[in-house]
């Protein structure tokens, strides 16, 4: 198991955003997490990636206990993520966004960087090449010199993904990767996610859009902070609780 | 006992004057979204105008105070329309604008009236005695005027319709516009009131402590201290902060040098801001 979450609980004031949540993701799989709006999915992501501290529970990633650690330390050991609201480095171009994200690998030596040593120059060339490759992977190579803030929403999502790939993650948390996309873009996103998995990266994605679920091998359903179902895509689609959560109890046959 | 009373009176005098100026500064910050560093210079101009009318033209002292408030208020309206309207919400350029204003105002006063300190005649002379305790009448009067104005101001903000509209703008300008609140006239009023309050403080302080073209620099730092310590967006915070800072400034110099007082004053603020960046009662999330 690459990621193991047990008993995770988080209260905001008196409101329970996440209740006693258990989750595990196996290496190499594309795992899905769905649930209606306000179910607590993003909070769960924030808990796992260190932006929010849990009240109770434990998070194990790749054999390390990362509960309560800071986001940058968690990123260091190979957990990458995208964000629903697509934060950008708006003063930078698309290419610069990705290049700047190559902070962890290769490791930066302040001395070498400042004095422009041979090693630093080699590293920068390598980073540049890798960045351009990543841009090809996510389909942004044509807009690489465009300023990030000028991109349409769908492209911004792909840029978020590109940035996350720069840290050479073992696990990638994708928060609504298909948000705001038209069907063509969604197809492309799904294909890209599959390609990323082929490179050996495990994926856990949160999605609102049922279409994206098709690429998931396992799905967990969340509502009101609790896990209400788990299984393969087919099993979850039939699950009564899930249907009730999404469509209301009248639709339960 | 005498010392306690004198200390208390001085603390309240300083507090109320600081608060008057700070409220004006905060008003402009919250409503127009500008950092008007020239507020201190406006306070100074108020004092000098009062002097000019009282001593230069021989007008009754209290009338001179009133005239000064009106003139400075009018000046505030002009500033709003011609200087700051272009920079609402633009902190960077409003800082530059206000510093340009400081320079222009201070230089003009300096060149015309000169640097030597004059003093506005006392608003009330003599000593009030009660038993073994004597207090300067002037300071009591200053205190009372300051207190009344603060009371009026707080009532205005809380109860009067326009006051509430100001509150609305400070919390959510876009929403306020959608509600039909006329931002421009409210901002003009804010400028008028803010500058007027500063003028009163300038006159009163000018009588108690004397005038100087650069007296505004000192009071500006105090105003900023109050606004930051009290918390941006909180009137009550400014009142509390004013009492704290005023008390420190009035009492500590009795025990340590003025320089140490300053260190304590600023040190307290720096430490507090590190622990609680939004100030004592500030609204924004840390």
């Amino acid at each position, binding site marked *: 198991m690459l990621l193991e979450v047990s008993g995770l609980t988080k209260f905001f004031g008196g409101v329970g955003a996440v209740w006693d949540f258990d989750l595990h993701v196996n290496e190499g799989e594309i795992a899905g997490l769905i649930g209606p709006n306000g179910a607590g999915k993003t909070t769960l992501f924030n808990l796992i990636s260190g932006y929010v501290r849990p009240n109770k529970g434990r998070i194990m990633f790749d054999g390390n206990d990362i509960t309560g650690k800071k986001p940058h330390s968690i990123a260091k050991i190979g957990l990458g993520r995208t964000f629903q609201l697509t934060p950008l480095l708006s003063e930078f171009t698309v290419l610069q966004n990705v290049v700047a994200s190559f902070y962890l690998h290769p490791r930066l030596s302040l001395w070498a960087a400042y004095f422009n040593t041979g090693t630093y120059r080699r590293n920068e060339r390598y980073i540049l*090449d890798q960045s351009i490759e990543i841009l090809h992977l996510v389909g942004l190579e044509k807009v690489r010199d465009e300023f990030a803030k000028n991109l349409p929403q769908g492209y911004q999502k792909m840029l978020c993904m590109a940035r996350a790939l720069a840290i050479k993650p073992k696990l990638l948390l994708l928060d609504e990767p298909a948000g705001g996309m038209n069907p063509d873009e969604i197809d492309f996103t799904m294909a890209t996610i599959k390609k990323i998995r082929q490179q050996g990266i495990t994926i856990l994605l949160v999605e609102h859009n049922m279409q994206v679920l098709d690429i998931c091998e396992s799905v967990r359903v969340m509502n009101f902070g609790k896990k209400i179902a788990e299984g393969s895509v087919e099993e979850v689609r039939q699950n009564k609780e899930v249907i009730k959560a999404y469509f209301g109890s009248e639709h339960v046959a | 006992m005498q010392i306690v009373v004198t200390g208390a009176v001085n603390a309240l005098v300083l507090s109320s004057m600081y608060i008057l100026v700070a409220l004006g500064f905060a008003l402009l910050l919250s409503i127009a979204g500008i950092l008007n560093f020239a507020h201190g210079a406006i306070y100074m101009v108020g004092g000098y105008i009062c002097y000019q009318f009282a001593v230069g033209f021989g007008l009754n002292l209290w009338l001179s105070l009133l005239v000064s408030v009106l003139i400075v208020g009018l000046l505030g309206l002009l500033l709003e329309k011609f200087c700051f309207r272009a920079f609402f919400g633009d902190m960077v350029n409003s800082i530059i604008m206000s510093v340009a204003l400081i320079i222009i105002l201070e230089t003009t006063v300096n060149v015309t009236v000169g640097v030597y300190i004059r003093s506005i005649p006392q608003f009330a002379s003599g000593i009030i005695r009660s038993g073994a305790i004597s207090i300067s009448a002037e300071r009591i009067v200053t205190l009372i005027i300051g207190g009344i104005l603060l009371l009026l101001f707080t009532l205005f903000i809380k109860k009067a319709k326009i006051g509430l509209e100001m509150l609305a703008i400070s919390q959510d300008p876009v929403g306020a516009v959608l509600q039909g609140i006329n931002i421009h006239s409210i901002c003009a009023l804010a400028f008028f009131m803010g500058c007027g309050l500063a003028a009163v403080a300038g006159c009163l302080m000018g009588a108690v402590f004397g005038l100087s073209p650069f007296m505004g620099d000192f009071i500006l730092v105090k105003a900023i201290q109050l606004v930051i310590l009290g918390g941006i967006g909180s009137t009550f915070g400014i009142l509390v902060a004013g009492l704290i800072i005023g008390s420190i400034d009035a009492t500590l110099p009795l025990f340590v040098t003025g320089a140490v007082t300053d260190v304590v004053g600023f040190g307290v603020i720096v430490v507090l801001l590190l622990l609680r960046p939004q100030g004592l009662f500030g609204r924004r999330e840390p």
Partner: protein
Amino acid sequence: MNKANRKFSMWKGKTPTKAVIYVGLIIILFVLPLVTRSPYYLHILILTFIYIIATSSLRTIAISGQLSLGHAGFMSIGAYVSAVLAKELGWTPWLTIPLGGLATAAVAVLIGYPFSRLRLIYFSMVSLFFGVAILAVNATLSDYTGGAVGLIAIPPLFASSKLPYYYFCFVLLLLSLLALRRFEVCRIGMTVKTVAQSHWVASSVGIDESNYRVLALAVGCFFVGIAGAVYAHYNLVLSPNGFNLLASINLVIYMFVGGMGSFFGPLIGTATLIIIPELFRGIKEFVPYIYSGIMLIVIFLMPQGIASLLGQVKFWVANVRERKTVRHAS
């Protein structure tokens, strides 16, 4: 992946024209003292050089998302530390000036970590108070620093009056600009700018933000400390009034008038606001009006700073050239 691909994307836009301008300016400034022996002009330029270092270092801090409104306070740390060490302990200014810079950087590191947790406007306010508080500390240590009266009889850097100072400050300015420029352009600067633009992005790619904020603050404070120390050993007299809140605000204004977006903005702003008012020396009392007049012109006509205007001019010139070639082609 071929070289042409890389070159196009990362080309920083250096053109022959820029190089010519830079070299030309340097030559002019180098030759200037030989042309005009007036000590007064040299004095103005020396001050300008010193303040350009101070303002540029302010910008280095600003690109990390921290706008310091207390920069003159840091300058005073470098100035007083160097002056007092030289005066009381008899050390040579060549040693005490770098020490002044290091002392300022040390203070920056000390307060930088708690300060780095603060968001933009809160950092500005705290730095404002810190800058003023430094002066208050200065006053309490008046046995060493002379307090409000000031410090006199500071050992000079050079025996004679202007010429060696001029070249020293000029070379120091060039070295400082190079150093700061390199900081900004290399990956360290890129990481600092990343931290400034988005907390989410920076932390999600593994950057420990506070480290870089403190680094930017320390580097900026080191250079302003050096500038202060050099000022001390040039002016030979120090007064806390030269480093008060208004002085800090002035540095910020120099930076904004020149334009924060460009590396040379601080240089342009400082030079403009120091040199141009001097041209009106004749009407001494009214010089402040000239000074504020320049500020007003800039904020109303070029709110992004003078450097942005020059950028637009460049753009316009390039456009004109393109239109001409198109016309020729058709």
